[in-house]
């Protein structure tokens, strides 16, 4: 790291709840310190320069997914971005697509909840639950795959990087499709491919994906978006063309139908 860098942050400021607030960029200057991350820089700005600056963080270690923002136009997690990787002057903007809470803080939670409901992000099964019985075993590879697809921290970087999402606000988004892939990989979920097609076989689902693969490039957790989106596209295309031909799963009513029985 070059010594004695003076960093200049152009930070987006706006409070949508204040009618007098106008969106603008405000400049803050800080001396760079060793191993400084954007998170430490923002905290120092808030403590030393402007206590009204809004931004989100919880875990500071890239697990909670709260601190995603556009750093020089690209979505990143503030807590795992070192200022040493960045030029002296940088622009910090809130993630696009999501509802702005204020300054750098956006509401990703409401959107992710809605997406979770849309893909019915839980296991659909007719198996009666016996709390005394041992869990059914699954192979190690199977468990690893499910874990791999389940590592999403819902930071919203993939959605912010996705041009299809910027053009279509009802698009399920890379993370929504990844949720579906996770349940397709799960042998306990008995939904048929045709049932899955009902959810993601639309132009707001997997066929809304254009294949920019910015999700794959900007996911801070390195989830395998390219491979999974291609897998879903192939599977859903085949299901769409021959719905009854490639269903390896047993037919089962979804949760929303079961509960009224």
């Amino acid at each position: 790291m070059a010594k004695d860098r003076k960093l200049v942050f152009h930070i987006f400021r706006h409070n949508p709840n204040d009618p007098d607030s106008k969106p603008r960029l405000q400049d803050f200057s800080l001396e760079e310190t060793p191993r400084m991350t954007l998170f430490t820089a923002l905290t120092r700005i808030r403590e030393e320069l402007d206590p009204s600056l809004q931004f989100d963080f919880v875990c500071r270690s890239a697990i909670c997914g709260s601190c995603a923002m556009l750093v020089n136009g690209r979505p990143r997690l503030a807590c795992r971005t070192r200022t040493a990787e960045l030029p002296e002057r940088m622009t910090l903007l809130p993630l696009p697509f999501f509802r702005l809470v204020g300054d750098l803080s956006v509401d990703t939670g409401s959107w992710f909840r809605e997406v979770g409901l849309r893909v019915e992000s839980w296991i659909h099964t007719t198996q009666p639950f016996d709390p005394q019985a041992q869990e059914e075993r699954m192979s190690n590879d199977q468990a690893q795959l499910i874990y791999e697809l389940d590592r999403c921290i819902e930071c919203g970087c993939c959605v912010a990087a996705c041009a299809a999402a910027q053009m279509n606000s009802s698009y399920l988004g890379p993370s929504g499709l990844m949720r579906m892939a996770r349940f397709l990989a799960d042998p306990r979920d008995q939904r048929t491919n045709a049932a899955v097609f009902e959810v993601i076989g639309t132009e707001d689902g997997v066929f809304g994906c254009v294949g920019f693969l910015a999700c794959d490039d900007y996911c801070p957790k390195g989830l395998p978006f390219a491979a999974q989106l291609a897998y879903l596209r192939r599977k859903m295309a085949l299901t769409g063309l021959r719905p009854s031909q490639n269903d390896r799963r047993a037919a089962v009513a979804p949760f929303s139908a079961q509960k009224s029985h």
Partner: protein
Amino acid sequence: MMPVDAGSHSQPQPRAARISSVDSGAQWSARAKPWTALVRPARAPAFLEMALSVSGLGLAAFMVMHLGLLFSVLLGTTTMNTLAGFLERYYLLQVGVAFLLIFFVSHVFLSARKTPARFGQQLALVRHIRSLKHLDTWTWGFQIVSGVALLAVVAIHLWVVLTDLPIQADKSGARVYQLYLWFYVPFLVLAESHLSIGVYRVAVKWGLLSRRLAHPILLVWTALVLSLGAAILVTLYRVGGRL
């Protein structure tokens, strides 16, 4: 689309029986979401998605064949004339043009589905491309622009060539030598880059190739086709110059 309570299942639902005979998936969705009993499952998006890729690959194959036929001029004008005469005598040219038009028109309509139509979407796309500076996103913006340009350029090219049959090396050479060089140079670059980017996207979208493999393959391919196209244009220019 939020999950909804299916309501009472005791009441018979109109046409549900017909749907349930289609397949198990439609059966549960008719129960879960009663409105699906009234509409057939929308399978069109799957078909359209595949048709877009297939029409693009078909046009790419056509262009490779086209370049391959034009390659004959490098072997001499008589070779090209014989080949063109053969294609016309056995109606292969006419069949080729019909094939091209069908694929071309369907490709235009199928890709228009993906293209942002409203100004707000276009603005969002341009801002996004400029902010993100991401290669694969940028190339898609280029696909839209080059696609629209090709719509005009291909129409002109087809009109000029097909209203002046039979195809002969001397006529093509004269065209390139006189006016059309500055038409064909950008045409070649536009068509080839549109093709390469399109084939690349088909490959990564459907998972036929990993991106690490697709990048170098497509680069080599593009260089090859561009140099072949340039060689053909230079030869035709010389043929035209000799007249």
